[in-house]
């Protein structure tokens, strides 16, 4: 985590701030979802409490807190309380491993009569070299939260909702894992930061021994892996249990799925888990296929130099550059989050056999084909010269 007290303290604060950032984005997303669905369905949505209905979030939070703490007496008490907490973990850990901006370079400085630094702080909770494998492994733990909730509720709707949710998650995880092999083949790394740094500049690749440069397109992963991007995008909807794959919550058949017996803040924690999962999914799409925190055709070094030229110190310029590119990342993140919401209020739900057929018989073979074609093309292009 660091070598001295300053570095360890900053890393701890950073970790907690990023987690709280994720939690605090959830009410905002709920607001966007309610306003967005109202917009799509030609309604008003929440617009009474505060400007644009924004303080509705606060009112909802207060209501959640002062709810009666009721749990059914036949339920398994410990697991009933543990399930909402368990559903928080995967989203928080996976989101923490994704780089949200450029690393910040802090120059050496004097404090308490001692020289500190220089330091380099990554703009993420923790740096982990095997990023993709870690995120895949952690986000599949989400099934445990749901399964525990369904099992602990002792209610047939809950247990069937939980079973469906976990069967759906593991089925789509195959296509999800396989659709990422193509992008790993192209970049040859598991590390998110390396992957993002390879997506800078204009689109350029080797084509039978000669280098092709297309100056008006950014060097993004989607131009190398369009099918992989589409497959990842579809499977992410299923992994987050969002419409059109929200079979676990098919209210016409299963009341509310695995959280039928939950209420108040415990129910809200499942929402935090689900929206956290959505944020991870959007962040992965951004990182793999849309250049991460990079703005096309803008070199971060230029921004940094321009800031230093305007009289900022090296540390300050680094912080400001990182914050600028953080905003770029969030713009891309919110674009995908909006697509999640848009799709939910546009498409109808699948039937369960259609859902399983799509996962096993369509997405999995397509992901296999994508892997094979990518491998052959990478082999031909790399070994030509």
């Amino acid at each position: 985590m660091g070598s001295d007290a300053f570095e360890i303290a900053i890393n701890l604060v950073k970790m907690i701030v990023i987690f709280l950032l994720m939690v605090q984005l959830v009410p905002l997303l709920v607001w966007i979802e309610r306003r967005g669905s109202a917009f799509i369905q030609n309604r008003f949505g929440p617009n009474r409490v505060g400007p644009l209905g924004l303080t509705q979030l606060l009112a909802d939070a207060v209501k959640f807190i002062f709810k009666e703490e009721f749990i059914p007496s036949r339920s398994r008490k410990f697991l009933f309380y543990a399930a909402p907490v368990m559903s928080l973990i995967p989203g928080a850990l996976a989101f923490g491993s994704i780089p949200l901006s450029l690393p910040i370079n802090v120059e050496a400085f004097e404090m308490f009569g001692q020289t500190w630094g220089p330091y380099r702080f990554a703009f993420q909770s923790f740096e982990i070299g095997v990023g993709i494998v870690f995120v895949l492994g952690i986000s599949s733990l989400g099934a445990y939260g749901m399964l525990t909730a369904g099992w602990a509720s002792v209610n047939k709707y809950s247990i069937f909702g939980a079973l469906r949710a976990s069967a759906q998650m593991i089925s789509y995880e195959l296509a999800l894992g396989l659709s990422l092999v193509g992008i790993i083949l192209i970049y040859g790394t598991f590390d998110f930061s390396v992957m993002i740094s390879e997506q800078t500049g204009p689109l350029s690749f080797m084509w039978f021994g000669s280098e092709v440069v297309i100056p008006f397109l950014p060097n993004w992963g989607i131009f190398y892996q369009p099918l992989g991007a589409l497959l990842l995008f579809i499977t992410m909807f299923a992994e987050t249990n969002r419409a059109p794959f929200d079979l676990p919550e098919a209210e016409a058949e299963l009341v509310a799925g695995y959280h039928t017996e939950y209420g108040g803040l415990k129910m809200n924690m499942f929402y935090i888990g689900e929206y956290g999962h959505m944020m991870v999914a959007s962040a992965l799409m951004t990182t793999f296929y849309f250049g991460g925190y990079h703005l096309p055709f803008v070199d971060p070094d230029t921004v940094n130099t321009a800031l230093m030229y305007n009289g900022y110190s090296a540390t300050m310029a680094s912080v400001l550059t990182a914050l600028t590119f953080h905003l770029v990342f969030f713009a891309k993140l919110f674009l995908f989050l909006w697509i999640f919401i848009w799709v939910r209020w546009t498409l109808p739900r699948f039937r369960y056999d259609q859902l399983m057929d799509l996962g096993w018989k369509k997405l999995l073979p397509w992901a296999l084909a994508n892997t094979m074609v990518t491998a052959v093309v990478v082999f031909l292009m790399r070994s030509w010269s």
Partner: protein
Amino acid sequence: MTSLVAILILALFVVAFGAGLLFLVSLVGPKPKYSSLKDSTYECGLPVQETGHSKIPVKFYLTAILFILFDIEIIFMYPWAVSFTEFIEQGMGLHVLLSMGFFLFVFIFGLVWEIKSRALEWN
């Protein structure tokens, strides 16, 4: 190693955050009042037919078993994908490509077998 410590600390913080929040909320909210009707299993207003754990369709077990088989096969592709470029640079590209081709053949054979044996039919 240090990142593993960071992950552990973050996981503990998240658990403490969630558990602490649940505990604080239980202090603030009104005490629950139980009645036999309120405590009964949710059944759309009708008398309760069956509570909790009825039989679970065997399809779910089958899906889980198939998932484990295929997921392990996919995980084997990850180290291959990451080191493929290095193998090409050392002139072993064709050998590695064909090895994975054989592995994928086994994978596809298994998938076709599952589909033909109607293990994945849900209707």
